[in-house]
């Protein structure tokens, strides 16, 4: 079959099971946009800024486990993707980004809207391609989907010249790929698995650190099984949230800088840490020299480069967690660690009295962020798909939404990209239309991607948006308060009228200033069929506690 490169691209995307493309047209990608008219099966969502296309593809990928696809033009279209690619790289998210490139004979001539896309994106993609001829398209797409979704997932960039899009070639979808250097290890070393099981069986105070890898590997059941069988407490990282139901009796809380007191303190009391699909980020470990001094560490990850990168692993195991846990569980003896669990309960009580009760159940003063999230959690029964931005809003959501269902949390972890939540929520809702989707943002982050409101309205994407408005860049303000002598520098935001803004986008919205209106506003939003925005006017100078100050160890958390 003789087709244009653009048609081959569409055919190949369909072969790989793509259904949705988040994109924005422009000069160097016009042949593909022309071809798209012939492929109505590929639903195109017209974003209002390319960065949003990448985040929407991330949201879609994180919600479905399938690669998200975005399509942009050359030059500025491609450079606008950079933040999304870096975010996807940090958070191991499979996305395929396709950008037009100037015609091959113009490359290197500083042509109109030319940018060295492969050069720019090399360090922030798992792999990238420049296509110069239509006969390369099918194989590249096949390789790209394989690379994006297998092993440690990540973003793939495909830059395709305008002539490669419009020239003709014979189309036959390849059956094989040629990647001799790419063979992710799936099966863990059986000897290492045995050693790990032996160590777990002997441990008195074991702790499971469950990360994003559990969700990527779809090992939620195995994790719960292991925890139950050996009676081991499970703490999650930020991206590990909802890899175990939070009403599971083994769940003990969130790790990290603003995590729960128990898991952080107990990291340094544990004798064995079982790290599953985590990368020991500095926001989790705090000061490395003060991290888990007495624990033996079992570290399971599919990316060998993560093992002993930050924290030395005593028993490193390379492979897919689901497979490894399946092998390991039969070797694990039943055990009881009630006394060890009571340690977490003790810390929880301290944290509850000092922080949680006042944050989630205040009786006077301005609305607190925590009570908004707690109310949302109660109203949605912990079953909504929650997309959080970055900053205080994210930490409060991570702390106070009570996730009772698996795989219900998406946020920007490694890169911490402001503005992520709104487009990511679009993509997540398109990927999981049956789920109730809430985007939680701050007033600062919302203004970084609010142009996507136009897309949300145009496509009638039924997401609910919460702005926790404290008129500040809250997290930066908190740090200036705590660590820069309370001197505020450029953190106050004189905000637009978010309600009128939403109305301008034809999205219904309301503002909540009084405590007693929180529930009714959330109820109205849930009843409304279509996108809906609630702005909560919250306490302006509230700090998120506990906090592990930078340079502190995990057991040096501050409660106030």
């Amino acid at each position, binding site marked *: 079959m003789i087709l244009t490169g653009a048609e081959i691209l569409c055919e190949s995307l369909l072969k790989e099971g793509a259904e949705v493309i988040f994109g924005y047209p422009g000069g160097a990608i016009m042949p593909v946009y022309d071809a798209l008219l012939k492929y109505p099966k590929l639903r195109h969502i017209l974003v209002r800024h390319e960065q949003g296309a990448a985040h929407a593809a991330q949201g879609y990928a994180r919600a479905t486990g399938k690669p998200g696809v975005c399509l942009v033009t050359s030059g500025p279209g491609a450079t606008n993707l950079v933040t999304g690619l870096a975010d996807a790289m940090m958070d191991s998210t499979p996305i395929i980004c396709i950008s037009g490139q100037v015609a091959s004979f113009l490359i290197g001539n500083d042509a109109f809207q030319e940018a060295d896309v*492969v*050069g720019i994106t*090399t*360090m922030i993609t*798992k*792999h990238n391609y*420049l296509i110069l001829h239509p006969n390369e398209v099918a194989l590249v797409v096949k390789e790209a989907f394989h*690379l994006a979704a297998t092993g440690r997932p990540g973003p793939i960039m495909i830059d395709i010249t305008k002539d490669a899009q419009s020239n003709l070639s014979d189309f036959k979808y390849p059956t094989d790929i040629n*990647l*001799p*250097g*790419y063979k992710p290890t799936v099966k863990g070393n059986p000897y290492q698995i045995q050693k790990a099981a032996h160590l777990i069986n002997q441990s008195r105070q074991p702790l499971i650190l469950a990360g994003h890898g559990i969700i990527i590997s779809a090992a939620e059941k195995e994790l719960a099984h292991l925890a139950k069988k050996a009676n081991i407490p499970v703490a999650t990282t930020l991206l590990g949230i909802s890899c175990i139901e939070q009403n599971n009796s083994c769940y003990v809380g969130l790790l990290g800088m603003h995590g729960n007191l128990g898991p952080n303190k107990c990291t340094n009391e544990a004798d064995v840490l079982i790290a599953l699909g985590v990368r020991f980020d500095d926001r989790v470990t705090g000061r490395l020299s003060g991290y888990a001094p007495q624990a033996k560490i079992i570290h399971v990850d599919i*990316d*060998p*480069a993560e*093992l*002993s*990168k930050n924290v030395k692993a005593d028993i490193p195991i390379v492979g897919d967690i689901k497979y490894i846990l399946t092998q390991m569980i039969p070797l694990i003896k039943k055990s009881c660690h009630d006394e060890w669990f009571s340690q977490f309960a003790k810390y929880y009580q301290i944290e509850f009295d000092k922080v949680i009760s006042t944050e989630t159940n205040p009786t006077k003063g301005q609305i607190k962020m925590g009570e908004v999230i707690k109310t949302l959690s109660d109203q949605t029964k912990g079953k909504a798909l929650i997309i959080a931005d970055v900053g205080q809003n994210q930490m409060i959501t991570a702390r106070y939404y009570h996730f009772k269902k698996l795989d219900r949390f998406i946020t920007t972890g490694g890169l911490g990209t402001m503005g992520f939540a709104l487009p990511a929520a679009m993509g997540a809702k398109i990927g999981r239309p049956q789920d109730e989707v809430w985007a939680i943002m701050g007033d600062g982050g919302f203004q970084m991607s609010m142009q996507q409101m136009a897309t949300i309205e145009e496509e009638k994407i039924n997401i609910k948006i919460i702005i926790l408005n404290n008129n500040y860049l809250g997290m930066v303000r908190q740090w200036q308060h705590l660590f820069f002598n309370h001197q505020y520098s450029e953190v106050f935001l004189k905000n637009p009228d978010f309600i009128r803004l939403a109305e301008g986008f034809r999205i219904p919205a309301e503002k909540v200033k009084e405590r007693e209106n929180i529930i009714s506003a959330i109820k109205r939003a849930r009843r409304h069929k279509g996108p809906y925005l609630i702005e909560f006017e919250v306490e302006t100078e509230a700090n998120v506690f506990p906090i592990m100050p930078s340079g502190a160890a995990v057991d040096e958390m501050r409660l106030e």
Partner: protein
Amino acid sequence: MQTEGNLSTLIVLVQNRPGVLFKIAGLVRRRRFNIESLTVSHTEDPNISRFTIFVRGEKEIVKRMSKQLYRIVEVVKVSDPSSQDIVARELALIKVATVKPKSRLDISLITRHFRARVVNIHPEYVIIEITGNEGKIDAFCQNMRKYGIIEFVRTGRTALFK
């Protein structure tokens, strides 16, 4: 692992695709690995290129570097052989001044002693070719310094498994 004052040789076989050198150089820069030399060449297989990276650092750092290299999709195999397992050589070309009296004779004696070769003769200088390990080349240069080294180039380490 080849250790000569914390120096190791990494032999990296890669798929011969455009941009691999850029990716490896980017990795070295971003992760701040300290490399002494890097050579690239074809191999007996036209689809595969060979990088020889001579790297300075503790054993752990070299190990981390080889794991990071595997993240590059085109990288097929990374080896960090011990010095007993490889034959490693470098080639250097040295332009030495011969204007001082008697220097031409001295230089040719030393050159012969090091089993190097004079490959070009000019009224005011000679160009000498020498192959060997880094220590031999360093020692030869040391001996040439007093005559005046006008220009000097060395290829960096390249190595084969025994």
